[in-house]
């Protein structure tokens, strides 16, 4: 069982884990020949911080433990990163990663809660995860449990009106056990978010909807861990961690060029990416 009081790994440990997860992301999506590696790479520090930093209360051996924290990946296309982490933490055998997106295999292109232990919600139609997480958070009021619900959204996803319906409702009900983590990688399907649909002033929007906000560099361990800790401690209302990230981080050629959204790397690109990441 992993609790906030468990021994925390060192930053060096986290760095090693994050590298391993990134290597898995590249390998599994290139093998599958499709998927969203760049959207997965941007969220790695945030997810590793949550799942290994002692902030998410969970037990891989008991995925249906009623008192566990819930994690909802609202940006369902970023699921390769989550699959790699869940496998690494022991929710299911690592071999499953080899069959990403294959017919008959449990790891589908987007999360399916009925097929994968550790997946808390079926997502993939953007904009819905915060409402689902809000429902989970409200459930604690009825049965006296004290778990926290963490929801990861993409920034492009925040174009969806339902995100703001849920944001308004969460602050209206003063839901103190709900945290939104926005992977602000700045790009969406057809362009940069600033060109497709301007989100700025982004932190002000969340504040205006009644949320406590922290804006961080989503690739810096000290900032990621401090923000997760702050969210864990804040129980007066909903909290938002707006994490500035880079799509494709740290692979230089994926970060440099728009156009890698929803595309697996070729064998040759994957080789270069693995080299840059430092995969063995």
């Amino acid at each position, binding site marked *: 069982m992993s609790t906030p009081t468990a021994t925390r790994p060192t930053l060096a440990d986290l760095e090693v884990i994050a590298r391993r997860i990134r290597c898995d992301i590249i390998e599994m999506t290139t093998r599958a020949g499709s998927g969203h590696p760049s959207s997965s790479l941007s969220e790695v520090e945030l997810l590793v911080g949550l799942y290994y930093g002692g902030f998410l209360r969970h037990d891989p051996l008991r995925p249906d433990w009623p008192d566990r924290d819930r994690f909802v990946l609202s940006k369902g296309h970023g699921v390769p990163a989550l699959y790699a982490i869940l496998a690494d933490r022991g929710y299911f055998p690592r071999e499953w990663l080899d069959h990403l997106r294959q017919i008959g295999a449990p790891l589908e292109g987007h999360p*399916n809660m*009925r097929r994968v232990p550790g997946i808390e*919600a079926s997502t993939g139609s953007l904009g819905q*995860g915060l409402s689902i997480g*809000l*429902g989970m958070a409200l459930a604690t009021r009825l049965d006296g449990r004290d778990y926290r619900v963490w929801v990861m959204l993409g920034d492009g996803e925040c174009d969806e*009106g*339902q995100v703001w*319906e849920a944001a308004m409702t969460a602050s209206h009900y003063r839901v103190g056990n709900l945290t939104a983590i926005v992977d602000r990688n700045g790009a969406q399907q057809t362009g940069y978010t600033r060109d497709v649909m301007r989100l700025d002033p982004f932190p002000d929007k969340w504040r205006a909807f009644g949320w406590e906000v922290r804006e961080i560099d989503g690739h810096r361990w000290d900032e990621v861990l401090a923000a997760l800790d702050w969210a864990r401690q804040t129980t007066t209302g909903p909290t938002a961690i707006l994490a500035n990230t880079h799509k494709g981080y740290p692979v230089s050629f994926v970060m440099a060029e728009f156009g890698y959204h929803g595309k697996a790397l070729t064998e040759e690109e994957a080789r270069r990416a693995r080299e840059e990441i430092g995969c063995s």
Partner: protein
Amino acid sequence: MLVGDSIGLKEGKATRVAFGETLVELGHEDPDLVVVDADLNNSTRTDLFARAFPERFFNVGIAESNLVGVASGLATCGKKPWIASFAAFMLCNAFDQLRMCVAFPGLNVKVVGSHGGISIGEDGPSQMGVEDFALAGALPGFVVTVPADEVATRLLVRQLHAHVGPAYMRTGRPNVPIVYTEETPLQLGKAHLLRDGDDVTLVACGLMVAVALEAAALLERDGIAARVLDVHTLKPLDEEALEQAARQTGRIVVVEEHLAHGGLGAVVAQALARRWPVPMRFVNLGDRYAESGKPRDLLEKYGLTARHVVAAARELIPQPVPTGS
């Protein structure tokens, strides 16, 4: 009364009221029952539950998409949410959420669409749920029900709550005639035979059940024995009862307060095409929206009265050959 006067039916409550009252009863019995609302509780009548169990009632504001998502989150944590809005808004506004958050994961969320059909009257077509059978029926794993009166509503709400899995129920705005007695053994998934006859079967649901009973009385005057079958559960469909009706009466008329496409007529025709094809006619709203007006006038103008059902049945029945002249 809206319909049913001609055969002496007694006016009962609106199905939405019977739904709200039954939720309160169930709330006393099951502490896991929660209700989520998108600010229409005094119309859908979940306000009755809200007053009785304020701690188990959440109004998420005028936000149907959010409503469905919140309910699904509650369901993953073992709660048994019932959600209600107007049928038009619930199905049309939040269809993607019903698909992704409820149907796809097969979560135990009970969805109620009130103000179904054109019999809501003066508020007009924007408020009329006339696509809900097609939309709810399209969702894999959903049970779809349409009670005819307050008695059926009470029985079906209880049976739906006992059923684990997603379900949709349509309720209506106006007071409607009572066609059942409290002792009627109405069963989810089983069509109910309200009147026997061998010449033609009138298949109906919701308010149209009373209309079909009126039509059967009119047909009887002309010596035609019409069977009336209440198919209150559109999904799963009671194909056995329909096949039996097709075999025994050889003619089927399907009556519904819904658009022509994807409703009761469509599912009945699909089943009978496979099991026992017979000549059929369809009494419904066709392929058009209605307008504001008094409920009774709307039913008349848009073709949903006993007279229209009789005309449809007559098309199927060979006319006696004129003699003498």
